[in-house]
């Protein structure tokens, strides 16, 4: 595992590997999404259009159960973007060929990415909370159903986004760390090779599965947290 090279801009530092793989992820998502929405057919969708329609329908299906239309429309694009971004981001580190940055490669295996998304979710929870419930409504939701539950509610408003980030980061980081460990087995010699290859094949498959599941979980929980904050307290 090669440590990240750090870029600096003024007093800020940036993890180069994270930014490079994030941009690669953005490029892949953009290419898929743009190619899937050019020359679309209303009657007989083909190719990438089907994928885009599937993702939007998939998100819509869950969103409809939680929110009515004017509210749901505010989250739809965010959730579709989140799902597309996370699926690609979680999978992209599994691809070989990053060369100088082998091992842990996914942007979501960097806690900064996970916490960045969680911070976004945290901001949205309270932005939409105050916007849709009103100030007293959203502030009052911390004292529901009982005033005595305020500490729990306050803690939860921190731990919800926090665990969101840690779950994503932990799953992806662990999955790719293990790949790095298996790669290091090659150094042990013949026995290492014999053990490493079948385990890697299995683990790569499992990591890909986890990558998709984690993207889905992150999207669903974001929908739940932000969507719930749009509804009157106690109504969900």
């Amino acid at each position, binding site marked *: *595992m090669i*440590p*990240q090279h*750090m*870029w*600096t*801009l003024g007093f*800020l*530092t*940036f*993890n180069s590997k*994270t*930014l490079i793989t*994030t*941009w690669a992820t*953005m490029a892949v*998502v*953009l290419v898929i*999404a*743009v190619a*899937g*929405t*050019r020359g*679309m057919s*209303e*009657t007989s969708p083909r190719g990438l259009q089907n994928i*885009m*329609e599937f993702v*939007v329908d998939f998100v819509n299906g869950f969103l409809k159960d939680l929110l009515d239309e004017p509210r749901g429309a505010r989250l739809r*694009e*965010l959730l*579709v*973007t989140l799902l*597309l*971004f996370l699926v690609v981001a979680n999978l992209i580190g599994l691809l070989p060929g990053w060369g100088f940055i082998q091992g*842990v490669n996914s*942007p979501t*295996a*960097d*806690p*900064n*990415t996970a*916490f*960045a*998304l969680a*911070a*976004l979710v945290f901001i949205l929870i309270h932005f939409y909370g105050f916007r849709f419930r009103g100030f007293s409504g959203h502030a009052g939701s911390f004292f529901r159903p009982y005033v005595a539950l305020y500490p729990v509610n306050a803690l939860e408003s921190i731990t919800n986004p926090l665990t969101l980030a840690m779950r994503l*980061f932990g799953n992806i*980081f662990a999955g790719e760390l293990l790949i790095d460990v298996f790669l290091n087995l090659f150094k042990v010699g013949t026995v290492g090779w014999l053990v490493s290859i079948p385990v890697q094949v299995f683990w790569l498959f499992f990591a890909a599965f986890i990558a998709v599941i984690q993207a889905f979980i992150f999207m669903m929980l974001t929908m739940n947290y932000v969507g719930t904050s749009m509804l009157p307290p106690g109504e969900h």
Partner: protein
Amino acid sequence: MGILSLGTLIAEIINFLVLLVLLRYLAYRPLAQMLEGRRRRISEAIAAADADREAAERMRQEYEAALVEGRREAQAAMERAEKMAQGRAQEILAEARAEAERLVRQAREDIGRERASAIRNMERQVAELSILVAARILGREIDESGHRQLIQDFVREATEVH
């Protein structure tokens, strides 16, 4: 391994928001337009199908009504024709009966006339014959004109017996 760095965190938030904005204009807008177009097309197709079905139903009812009306008219025409034919038959029958009665009456009159003339003839012949027979028996000529009245009276008496 990621080291917590504020710069990366801020950069990742910006990256995600950039992706969100790019996708909104490059992908979601056209996709939403296409879905709206599809929704409109489907609802139009359903509306058109509904209208067609309604029109077909209306047409079917019209045809059915026309069929019933036609059947009713045909029935009425048949009844009218039958009634007319029956009337005509009665007429013909009545005419025939009248004609027959007329013929019978005429025949009766003819027979009566014939019979009267035959009887008159016979009376005359019997009278002549009687004169002839009487002359032969008496051996002399009976004055025909002198006794005719007498004989005719006799003959009438004789014929009135039967």
